[in-house]
Every structure is written in C-alpha cells, then in structure tokens.
C-alpha cells in the first residue's frame, strides 16, 4: 500500500495510468456509445465529414469504427502476450534461481539462447507458415511464447538472491513444499519486478503485433491498428498524403505505448529512490 501511495505521488505514473485506463475504457465502452459498423458506408478514402469524423478507408469503411475495433484488438493481443510471457518467464526464472545447480544451468542456457535468437524472426517464420487461420489469438500466443526470456532473466537474479535468506530456510525447516516456498515466500518479494516486466511485455506485445501486421503477416480474422497501417502503406495512402488513413492509428498506438512506458519508468523511479530527487 505504501508502494501505491508513493506511486500516486509521481505525476508520471498518474498520467500514464490515467492514459492507459482511458484507452481501456474507450475500447470497452466506445462501441456502446458509438455505432460500430464494418460495412461500406461511402467512397474509397472518403474525406472526414461531420458524420464520419475520421473519414473512410480503402474499402469505404468508417475509420472511427475501425480504430475502436483496432484498439480493442491491440489491447487484447498485448495483454494476452504479456500474461503468457510473464507467466512462463516468472515460472522459469523463479524456479531456476531457487533450485540452482543443473536445473538452473539448463534453464539459464535456454533463456540465453532465446534472448539472442531474435523473436521478431521467429514470429515472422511462424506467421508465414500459417497462411490460413492466422488469428489474433494465435499471434498473441506466439508473441507471448517468444518474449518470456526478459521476465525469466529479471526474475531469476532476484530469486537466486533471495534463496539463502533466513525466512526461506525457516519455511523449508517447517516442511513447506517447493511450490509453497516459491509462491508464498519468494513471489511477494519480487512481485514489483514481475509487474514492471509485465508492463513492458504488454507494450512490446502491442508493438510486435503492429509490426508483424505492417509487413502483411497480421491477423486475418479482425482489424488491428497494425492492419490499418499496413493498408495505408499498401494502397499508397501514405504517399498520397491521405492523413486520416494513418495519422489517427499512429497516434492511438503511440499513446498506448507511451502510457505503458510512463508507468514503467515511474515505477523504476519509485523503486530506485536515487532517481526520485
């Protein structure tokens, strides 16, 4: 609680959190107040009007609708990838660091291996092999499974440092199972680190989805902020200066990532008091 109090004192955190919450609210409640339609409602790249505030896309669809849908997709894919990556990474890191020995060596080697093999490349290879049925969920799962290494590294160091503390020895003497020690006696101490990496994972998930969609390997079942940008580039809207085809989407994605980035940076400041002055 003291931590939260300190965080709320940081204007950076408050701005970041408010920004993120409002995008979340818009994504969830927007479609309640605004009639979202994926139907053709006018001419190709129709200019913004009072009815369609952000104009129409290549297929004559309303950009406000597309953005609401895209924002929802991006948040979904980011959170899914973040949860998967953080769960795998935390389990691997906390267990390896606590156990030590051969298990730790093997897990650590595996982690280091996947740190240097670019996850972007793995993402391209898998997405390219799924020509049909490449869904948003699949992409989120792949991103999560290729980016867990950051969490694992961050958590492992903390877990290894904690394992020889007195309260852990006490818990072991008490006959607690390894799982209980890990979850009850280690996890709470490193929770702040886990959360900080989770925030980073969410933002990297959002960016990875947008990047993979930009190169034409995005989800086939829905609209995302990345597929909107891909369309703008492919149809030449960027070169023709049709600003409503890409400026709103880039603004939304940048705000989303910036909010998460502010949250992360401000937390770093709170945990490292020297940065606060």
């Amino acid at each position, binding site marked *: 609680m003291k931590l939260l109090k300190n965080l709320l004192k940081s204007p950076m955190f408050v701005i970041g959190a408010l920004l993120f919450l409002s995008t979340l609210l818009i994504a969830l409640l927007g479609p309640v107040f605004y009639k979202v339609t994926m139907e053709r409602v006018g001419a190709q790249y129709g200019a913004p009007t009072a009815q369609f505030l952000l104009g129409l896309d290549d297929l004559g669809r309303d950009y406000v609708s597309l953005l609401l849908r895209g924002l929802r997709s991006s948040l979904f894919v980011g959170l899914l990838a973040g949860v998967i990556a953080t769960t795998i990474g935390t389990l691997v890191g906390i267990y390896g660091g606590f156990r030590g020995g051969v298990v730790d060596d093997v897990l650590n080697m595996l982690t280091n291996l996947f740190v*240097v093999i670019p996850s972007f490349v793995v993402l391209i*290879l898998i997405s390219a092999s799924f020509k049909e049925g490449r869904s948003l969920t699949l992409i989120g799962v792949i991103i999560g499974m290729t980016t867990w290494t950051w969490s694992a590294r961050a958590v492992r160091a903390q877990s290894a440092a904690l394992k020889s503390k007195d309260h852990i020895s006490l818990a072991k003497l008490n006959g607690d199972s390894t799982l209980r020690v890990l979850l009850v006696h280690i996890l709470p101490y490193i929770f702040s680190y886990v959360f900080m990496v989770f925030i980073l994972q969410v933002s990297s998930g959002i960016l990875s989805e947008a990047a993979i969609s930009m190169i034409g*390997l995005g989800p086939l079942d829905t609209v995302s902020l990345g597929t909107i940008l891909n369309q703008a580039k492919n149809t030449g809207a960027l070169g023709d200066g049709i600003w409503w085809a890409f400026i709103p989407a880039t603004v939304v994605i940048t705000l989303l990532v910036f909010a998460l980035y502010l949250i992360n940076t401000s937390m770093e400041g709170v945990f490292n008091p020297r*940065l606060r002055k």
Partner: protein
Amino acid sequence: MLKQYPTIRFILMRAGWYFMTFLVAVTINFYLPRLGKNNPVDIIMGKAGSGLSSEDARQKEEKYLQEFGLVKVKDGEIVRNAEGKPVMASKLEQFGNYIKMCFMGDLGTSFQTYPKKVLDVIKEAVPWTIALQLPTILFGWIVGNVLGALAAYRRGVFDKVFFPFALILSAFPFFVFGMLLVYIFAVLFPWFPAMGGYATNLEIAPSLAFLSSAAYHYILPFFSIFLILAGGQAIGMRSMGIYELGTDYIRYAKSLGLKEGKVLMYLFRNAMLPQITGLALSLGTMIGGALITEMIFSYPGLGMAMLTAIQNSDYPMIQGCTLIITVSVLIANFTVDILIGFLDPRVKAGLQMGKGA
C-alpha cells in the same frame, strides 16, 4: 586446457556457445515454416505449370522437387517407387540436405525470381541494410549515451528540457516515426524523397550522381532510426548515471578533490557497462525495427527483400532472409560479448585467475 591463455580460452568458449545457438537457430529456421501445409512445389507449379502438357508439367515438377530437396536422390537420379513415382524425402532427410546446403553457402532458389538464387538476391540487398543500420545504431548509441550521462551529471535546466524530450522520442515505435517523417518531410513538405535508396533513373555505379542521390535518400531513414535509438539510450544512461552518482566511490573521488572531468570518466566507465549489455540484449529488436523502417521507405535492403518475399509466399527467400538476420544478430552479440570481456574489470579479473567467464 589453454589455462595460460585465458583470453583465447574465453573467446573460444563464447564462440562455441554461439555456434551452438546458431545450430538451434538453423533448426528453428528449417522447421517453423514447415508447420503449416505449404508444399513449395505446389505454389511454384501454380505459377509456372499453366499451359504445359501433362508430360512437360510432370518433368518440370520433378525437376523442382529435386531442386528444393523434397525427394530422395541417389547418384544424381531421383529414387522412384514401383509405379515410377518419385519417393519423397522425410523431414529429417530434408533437414540434413538443408544443413549441408547452408554450410556450402547455398540458401536455395527463390520461387518468385526463379531460377535466381536466394543468396544472389540477398547479396544485392545486404550492403544497403549494412550501410543504413551499422552507422545508425553505433552513432545513435554513442550520442544517446553521451547526452544521457551529461543529463545525469548536470541535472538542472538541461535535464529538465532534455529528459521529457528523450522520453517521448524513445516511446515512439520505429514504424510510426518513419511514417510521420515520410508524411511531414516528403509529402507535406516535399524536401526529401519518400521512398527508395536512389533515384530510379540512375545506375548503381560509383558515380557522383549516384552517390549524391543515395545520400539524399539516406537522410530520412537515418533520422527515423537514429533519433528513437539515441532517445532510448539516453534514458537508460541517465538512470545509470544518477544511480552511480550516489555511490561511495564517486563521493570518495569528489571528496579527494579530483577534477570534474576525471570523476565523469569514472562515472561513465561504470555506467557504460550495463548499457553495452543492454545493447547486446536489444540488438535483435533494433535490427527488426530498422527492417520495418526499410519497408516503410521502400529502401532496397533486406527488409524490403523480405517484404516482397512474404507478399509472394516465396518461402526459400523468407527463410534465407531470416537466417541472414539471425546470423548477423548472433555476430553482433558475439562482438559485444567479447567487448564486455575486455572492458569489464570483473570479467577480466575472472579471466586472469583462469576461471573463464
């Protein structure tokens, strides 16, 4: 073994580790694209097979099957079953072929530009990518770190203006920033070209016209990567610098009355190490991001080659590009690793005790 030469031992051990990583990467590179049901020969026959008689089509198909290593081959002839149909090679045999070809420097044949070799297409693209990425990443890293250290040391007004600016810059995704630069400086104000690596009416030659055109096309992609990178590095260096400033050794050095420059040197040296490690960790992301920037600017490098390949389902080409990217990330990481070995006193001390690292 090699105990008396700890440095060589260290380098050899790292090289061995990276070689192992390379093998894993090649395996991933081979198996992942085969997850889906994509028979490359079906794709290429769909393109080349129309209008041929059935006999010609069959011959052509067998030629392709052999060329892409999908059938068993003995003494240069396709192995056939009792009905005269070619016997397909198992995944494991295909993998063996693939590894053998990789080590012989043969990355296969492109579908799209058949019969052009993948390696030849990559050879044309790689110089552009290196020319764009190497200076951008190095320069961005250096400028970012120097500015970050200054901001940490000076604080005050410089920091108050610089920090939020760097924060905003570093939060921009590569492709967003690239698109905005194109829109502002090539479309709204047509000062710079929006796409390409040189004017299309010019031949690639060491002529003044070509070089100046290439330099002109270089500016926007360069800045779109450089600014974001420098911003991110500056933020990291600033945090590290502020952290180091509070440590005892800096206080001690200051209380000794050492010159400001000398203290800054100590500070920079210690704060720099995590930054180099950070560089190693994020190289893959940086190179990936820069590749997307290439696509936005239609820059004639690897990113563009890969984009074209993806659009045409040109699997050998996609695999060739991903392999080259992985290998360059591995080489870059290896270089940084060795560099840390020489710069970090702790690793160096470990080496001199003969423990390795």
